[in-house]
Structures are given as structure tokens and as C-alpha cells.
């Protein structure tokens, strides 16, 4: 009897293996690796560092699931393997045809309430398809198990073949071969300030000058800590989008839509303006640290000669936590395959991936991850460093980039409004300034608070506050001079005490008429889609829209509503 039972178990095992392997392969390996190969430059780990634990997980889940399912008998067994196949088929259909564009996995909050109807319809499709698949399998009667096995084999073969293709494409692409030259920004000096002198730039992402106005209506005292500053309320960011704005700000090089992004990065960092600027600040005794937990927009490898906390990544610089990595990758696959109604419970974010592969040299603290930047600032404070030269520091924080995530006290709040988050960042900046004062380093510091860009719609201009070294005021000064981020490098050099031919914000005065142009990436379907930067996928944007205006933000808004003054087709899309 026992021998017969074992033989029946072995037969069921053979029938169960392929459907179980199919669903394990999809959820434990292929679903996430497909995303990885298309976006490798956004991940800190390599193809093989992800592949090995996922292969092991796939094998373990397959064997466990097969063994358990094979314990079932007769029609229950047949029903369960048909159900597993049906779920795999539904997942496949979901991923191929039914998923909506829900945006990037960059921590942005999704308003799931918008999709209730779609979620319901999607769930009905799942139920219908599952029922139909199981029913069809049972139409084969005694051959139902074979039918399930055959169908599973076909679906598995299709996906294994796809996996092979994209793996070869990835392993032969720059995205993989350049893994050997991966760079990161480390955070071990993030709270250090120099006893010899500091130039500190707070770069608060997505922070328009319109948001200052909006927040002031609710928090009229919000800017009181900035009484020593001058507020420039007519500042043009030149570019909308962290790419290409930050690199333009740091190198002075205008974006060139006729070349690849990597080539533009190279030209920017190796150009005469950048080389001259960084040579001068080095001669003046400044060390440059740039703090951001993300760096894919940075053209980072070309910035290596200039950025102190930039490190060429070797395997000894990070630790792969294989368990966490497998978990977050499986979550990513499930997010893609699950019916729409379940996706809100499965959405991973950037920090899940970072925590699976942490940097040994210290992560850069950020306001996105439960505001760890502010928490650490309050807990440990700033550290005064002596004998290490002067510091030029850029703190790039999440700012008012959606989703709004801080309350007015700078505390994490996933339901925060724009005004609350805008005020919350001023609270954080005020705390930083307060600590500088306590260390006696505030007066001699030059501090700029600005943003890399505003909103892509009506509120494109950015806020810009500056306190020059030695300036003291009872009340914040306000200027409507038509400045832009084209003047950032010159203004920094001027305040560091250098002679410079670069333009500065002091070259412009209130009421002066100046023609400026701001550009934004856009999806214009009248132009062809182009490759995505560092990826085998097709990019999102096709063009850059340029808006030229003379005057203030109202004039820019008018031009935005008229439409672009010029359309520049892209060679490559960053997103």
C-alpha cells in the first residue's frame, strides 16, 4: 500500500512540478529581473547578485509548493494545479495587457481611490479568466492533469525564452559592463561643518516660489528664521526636472539635445567652465560634498575629480543582504503581476532596495525615509571639524516633490499638504541654521536655499534665498531681480572670494527686463520615441519644450499657456 501511495505521490509530483515552477519562476525570478534588466542603472546591486538568491528562492518555492500540492488527491489535486496555472495565466495577462501606468517606484504616493472602478473590473476579469481556465482544464477530463502540465510548459517556455533574451541583451549592454565603474555618494560627512568656513546650499527639490506664497498664507512666520537672507522671488531654474537641472547648475553647461545623455554628462563635467570652477574652489581651500541618496541624474562618474564624498563602488563598499533583496524583488514581481486591487499593498519603494544593499561608508540621510535627515540632525547635531579646510556643501533634499510627506514641524506625514511640506522644510532649514549658530559658524557662512526646479506646469520658477557671509539683518530683504541658475557658479565663486568672469545674481537689478528661457521634458507624440538612458527600454519623453519670456513668473506662466517657444527633439530620454 505504502509503495502504491508513494508511486501515486510521485506521479502527482510530476504533474504538479511544471505549474508550480511556472508560478515560482514568474513571482520569484522573472517578474523582478525583467524590471532590473530594463532599469539596471537604478539599482545598486548587479545582475548576478540578484540572480543567485532569486534562483535559489525559485527552486525552494517550486520544490516546497510541488511537494505540498502533491499531497492532495484525486480531483482536489487536479483542481489545485489547474488553479495554480490559472493564477499564473492571469498574472501573465495582467502584466502584458492590463496594468496601468502607475508611475515610477520612487516613493511617490498613488491615489488609489481614482482606480476603484478599474480595480473592480480588473478583479472580475481575474475571476472570469480563472474560472474559465479551470473549467477548460476539466473539460479534458482524465487528461486534465496533462493539459495543465502542457499549458504550463508552453507558458513557462515563452517566459524562459524571454528571460534568456533580455539577460543576453543586458549582459552585453553598457548597463552591465559599466557596473565595474559604479559610483555612489556616501554620507559619513553629511553633518560635518568646517571651522574654517562654509558655503552651504540647500537644494530642496521641486520647490517653486509659488509654493512659498501658498505656504505663507497658512504659516506667515515660516520665513522668520531667514531674516538675514535676501529672497529673490524671480528666479528661473533654466530646466524643469532634476535631470538636467542639477548637472547644469553644477557645471554651467547647457543641455544639448543632439547628443546622448552620457556624452552630455561627460561634456558638462569635463568642460572648461566646470574644470575652472572646481579648480578655483580647490585653490580657495574648499572641499565639495554633495549629499543625496540618489545619483542617477548626476553623470556621476565624470564628477569623480571634484566631489569629495563620491566613491567608486567596489564589492567591499556595500553589503548584499540576500534575504532582504530576495524579499523586495519578489514584492516587485508581485506588484506587477497582482490584480490591480491588490497593488496598493505590494508597492515597493527605493529605500527597500537601498536597505537590502546598504553602503558600508554610510548612507546619505534623506527626508524621504521617515525624515531620517532631520531626525539625525536633531539627535546628533552638526559636527564642527577643524583642520580639514573649508567646506562647500550641497544638501539635496526631497523638498516639495510629490508626494507631500512632511508636516509643518518637519515630521513625516503621508497625508501632508503642499503648504505643510513647504513649511516643514523651512523648519528643517531653520534647525540647521540654529545649530550653525550654536557652533559659532553661522555668521561667516554663505548659505543659499533654492531648488533645482519648480513644477512642470504653472509654477516653474524656484525660490532662491541667500545669506552672504557677514550679513546681518533685522528683516529679510526681497528682490525681484530676474536671476537664474545660470548665475549659480559665479555667485558661489564671488562669495568664496574669487575673481570671476562668470555672471552672478548681483549683475541684475529689480525691474530689469531680461529674456530668459526655461525648458522641460515632455511627451509629444508628434515626435518619435527615443532610447532610454542606460537602458534597453524606450524612453518616456520625446522632446524638450523651451519657454522664452521677459519679465516675472506671470510672464512665464503666460508663455506656458501659449505653448512652447521652441521644441527640441531628444536624442535620448532620461526617464
Amino acid at each position: 500500500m505504502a509503495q502504491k501511495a508513494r508511486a501515486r505521490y510521485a506521479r502527482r509530483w510530476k504533474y504538479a512540478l511544471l505549474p508550480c515552477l511556472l508560478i515560482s519562476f514568474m513571482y520569484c525570478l522573472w517578474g523582478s529581473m525583467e524590471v532590473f534588466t530594463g532599469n539596471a542603472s537604478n539599482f545598486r546591486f548587479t545582475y548576478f547578485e540578484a540572480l543567485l538568491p532569486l534562483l535559489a528562492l525559485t527552486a525552494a518555492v517550486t520544490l516546497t509548493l510541488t511537494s505540498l500540492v502533491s499531497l492532495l488527491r484525486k480531483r482536489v489535486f487536479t483542481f489545485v494545479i489547474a488553479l495554480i496555472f490559472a493564477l499564473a495565466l492571469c498574472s501573465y495577462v495582467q502584466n502584458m495587457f492590463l496594468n496601468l501606468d502607475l508611475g515610477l517606484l520612487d516613493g511617490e504616493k498613488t491615489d488609489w481611490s481614482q482606480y476603484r472602478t478599474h480595480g473592480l473590473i480588473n478583479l472580475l476579469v481575474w475571476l472570469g479568466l480563472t474560472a474559465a481556465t479551470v473549467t477548460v482544464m476539466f473539460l479534458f477530463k482524465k487528461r486534465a492533469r496533462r493539459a495543465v502540465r502542457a499549458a504550463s510548459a508552453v507558458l513557462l517556455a515563452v517566459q524562459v525564452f524571454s528571460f534568456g533574451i533580455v539577460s543576453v541583451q543586458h549582459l552585453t549592454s553598457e548597463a552591465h559592463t559599466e557596473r565595474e565603474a559604479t559610483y555612489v555618494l556616501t554620507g559619513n560627512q553629511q553633518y560635518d561643518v568646517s571651522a574654517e568656513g562654509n558655503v552651504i546650499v540647500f537644494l530642496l527639490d521641486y520647490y517653486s516660489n509659488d509654493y512659498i506664497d501658498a505656504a505663507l498664507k497658512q504659516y506667515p512666520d515660516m520665513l522668520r528664521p531667514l531674516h538675514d537672507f535676501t529672497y529673490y522671488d524671480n528666479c528661473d531654474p533654466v530646466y524643469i526636472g532634476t535631470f538636467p537641472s542639477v548637472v547644469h547648475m553644477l557645471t554651467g553647461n547647457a543641455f544639448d539635445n543632439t547628443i546622448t545623455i552620457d556624452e552630455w554628462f561627460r561634456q558638462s563635467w569635463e568642460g572648461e567652465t566646470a574644470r575652472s570652477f572646481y579648480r578655483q574652489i580647490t585653490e580657495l581651500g574648499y572641499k565639495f560634498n554633495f549629499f543625496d541618496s540618489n545619483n542617477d541624474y548626476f553623470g556621476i562618474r565624470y564628477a569623480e575629480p571634484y566631489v569629495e564624498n563620491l566613491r567608486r563602488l567596489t564589492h567591499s563598499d556595500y553589503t548584499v543582504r540576500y534575504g532582504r533583496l530576495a524579499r523586495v524583488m519578489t514584492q516587485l514581481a508581485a506588484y506587477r503581476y497582482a490584480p490591480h486591487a491588490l497593488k496598493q499593498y505590494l508597492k515597493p519603494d527605493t529605500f527597500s532596495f537601498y536597505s537590502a544593499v546598504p553602503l558600508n561608508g554610510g548612507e546619505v540621510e534623506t527626508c524621504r525615509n521617515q525624515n531620517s535627515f532631520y531626525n539625525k540632525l536633531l539627535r546628533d547635531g552638526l559636527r564642527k571639524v577643524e583642520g580639514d579646510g573649508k567646506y562647500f556643501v550641497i544638501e539635496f533634499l526631497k523638498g516639495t516633490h510629490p508626494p507631500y510627506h512632511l508636516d509643518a514641524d518637519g515630521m513625516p506625514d503621508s497625508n501632508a499638504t503642499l503648504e505643510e511640506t513647504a513649511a516643514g522644510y523651512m523648519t528643517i532649514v531653520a534647525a540647521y541654521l540654529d545649530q550653525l549658530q550654536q557652533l559659532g559658524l553661522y555668521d561667516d557662512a554663505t548659505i543659499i536655499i533654492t531648488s533645482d526646479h519648480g513644477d512642470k506646469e504653472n509654477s516653474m520658477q524656484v525660490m532662491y534665498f541667500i545669506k552672504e557671509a557677514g550679513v546681518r539683518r533685522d528683516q529679510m530683504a526681497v528682490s525681484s531681480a530676474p536671476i537664474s541658475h545660470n548665475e549659480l557658479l559665479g555667485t558661489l565663486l564671488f562669495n568664496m572670494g574669487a575673481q570671476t568672469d562668470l555672471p552672478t545674481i548681483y549683475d541684475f537689478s529689480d525691474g530689469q527686463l531680461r529674456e530668459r528661457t526655461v525648458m522641460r521634458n515632455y511627451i509629444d507624440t508628434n515626435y518619435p520615441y527615443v532610447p532610454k538612458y542606460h537602458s534597453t527600454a524606450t524612453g518616456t519623453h520625446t522632446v524638450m519644450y523651451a519657454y522664452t519670456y521677459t519679465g516675472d513668473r506671470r510672464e512665464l506662466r503666460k508663455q506656458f499657456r501659449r505653448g512652447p517657444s521652441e521644441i527640441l527633439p531628444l536624442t535620448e530620454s532620461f526617464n
Partner: protein
Amino acid sequence: MKRFFCAVLALMFLACAALADTSLITGEVVEIPTPGDVRLLISDQAFEASFNDRQMFGALQPDGTLLIGTQEKAVRLGGLPDESLLQGLFDRLDQQPTYQNSIYSSLFTQAQKIELPADEVRDYALTLISLFPLLDRDGSLRQALGDAAGSEPWASVTRYRADPSQYPNTWMIDVNVFSPALPALRVQYRQDEFGSNFEIACTRNAVTDWDETVLAIEDDLSGESGKVLRGFTMVDDTGDETWTYLEITGFGFGYQWRFATDIYRDDADPQRWEATAVMNNDTDNVPVMTTKLSSVSVSQQPSPIFDGAVIVDATDGLDDAERELLGLT
């Protein structure tokens, strides 16, 4: 306030249409009296304008129509559009399933769409013509619409929405009329926190791609390809004053013209305002007119007098005005 704004808009449309057919078509500069010669009293329900020895009134009537004219002769315009005209459409859109939008997808991620049958399009068109009789001065449209009936789709209405957490009150409506009786028509209206954008494109040619059609109209000064009116409004309340801006560009009217007006209203005293209006011939890059108006009195109310005036409908009124402008009478 809304009615006042509608009235101003309607007047400007009328003025633009009338001028486009008369003196502006030749590129002549219209003589605008100096501000000191102009007197304009405005309330929510009426206005009174005078310059030199001429006087003109406008008044909303209890039945919703608008009388505009002098003590001797006035034109009756159909009731001004209000929200109820579109409320039915919005209610039906609300009931439609929301789908993921692939057009304008960087901002408007969600969409809902309905199709309108022939008889319903006819009813809307006749309502619109009654509001703006200039759309059908010779009556040909009303004649073409007379027999329209049935359930054949003649138009579609699509509403796009942006993520409300980031872009509150931001939506766009796109109306596309593709009937055999009416000219092809596309109307787009976008609303957001800072103002609105609108575009009305009309052509008698068959349309397969509106973007291409609009480009062709923009390139054809004669207007034979069709006409496009495109513009936007902006509103900005600084706390001290409210700035309202309107800009309209017209294509297919003999030359490309642009009309723009700034209106500043004192928040503390909304009766106090200043306005500047300019019109430009963008084809030849020459100004057509510029005028400035500002409030000088806050106590007086307009007192339109239409007792004994001859009341005519809008088409006849326009014909009379045109003859007068051309010096035919």
C-alpha cells in the same frame, strides 16, 4: 461676478467678430478715444458706456437675455451660458467608467468619455447659436440641423483629470463634433488653479488628425482651411489686488491677430479696477489698438434706458452695425 465675466467675454467676442469683418481686415488702426473721453459704469447686471456724445447700455433681463444698445435701438442676445447648460453633460460623464489616459498623459492621467447622438448634438448646437447668433448669420446651420435626428454619434465629449493631490481642480474637456451637417469642430477647455486655456477649431474639411488640421489652419491666412481661436485666462490674487488676464489669438481671419487684456481689481474695493486692452496683428507684427480704462467712480450704478427703443435680434443688429461702420447708412 461670473455673469459679469461672461458678459465681458461675450462683448469681446462680438467686438472681435465685428471688427474682423470690417475695419481690421484691412489692417487699419482703430481710433480709440483717450481714457478721459470714456465713461463706463459696470454692475453685476448692467453696464453703461459713453464716449464723446455717444452712449451705450447693456442689461441682463429677468428672462436671462441680454439687451445691448442705445436708447433708440437695442439688440437682444440669447441668455448667457450658465453652469446648467453643461451640468447635464458633466453628470453623464461622472457616470462613465474612468480609464487610463494615454494622451496628455504627463498631466491628465484619467479620462471619461461619452458620445452624443445626432438629435442631442442638434439641440446643443441650436442652443449655442441662440447664445451666439454670429455663428450662423445666414441661417445655413440652422437649416442643416433642421432634419437631424437619430442615434448616430455626431460628437464625443472627453473629460481628462489630473492627480488631485498634486493638481487640485485641474481638468480638461475635449468636445469633438464630426457630424455630416455641421462643420468639423473641436473645442478644448482646460481649467487649473491659475486659470484656463481654451481652443476652438472649426473647418468644413474632413478631419482625420486635428493636430495637423490646426497646423494647416494656422498656416492659411485666408481662412479657407478653417478658423482657430486659442487663448487663455489667468487669475492671480496677491491679497491686495486680483489680476485677471485674457489673451485670444485668432487664425484664419485674414491675418493672425491677438487680443489681450489685463484687469486689476482692488481686493479691498472690488469696484475699483484698471484695465488695459491691446490688439495686435501678429502676421505683420503691428499694433491694431491699445486702450486703457480705469474706474473713477465707485458710487454710481449704471442705469440703462431701453424704454421706447427698437429691439432687434442679434443678427439684424449686427447687420445694422456693420452697415453703419462701413458707412452704408
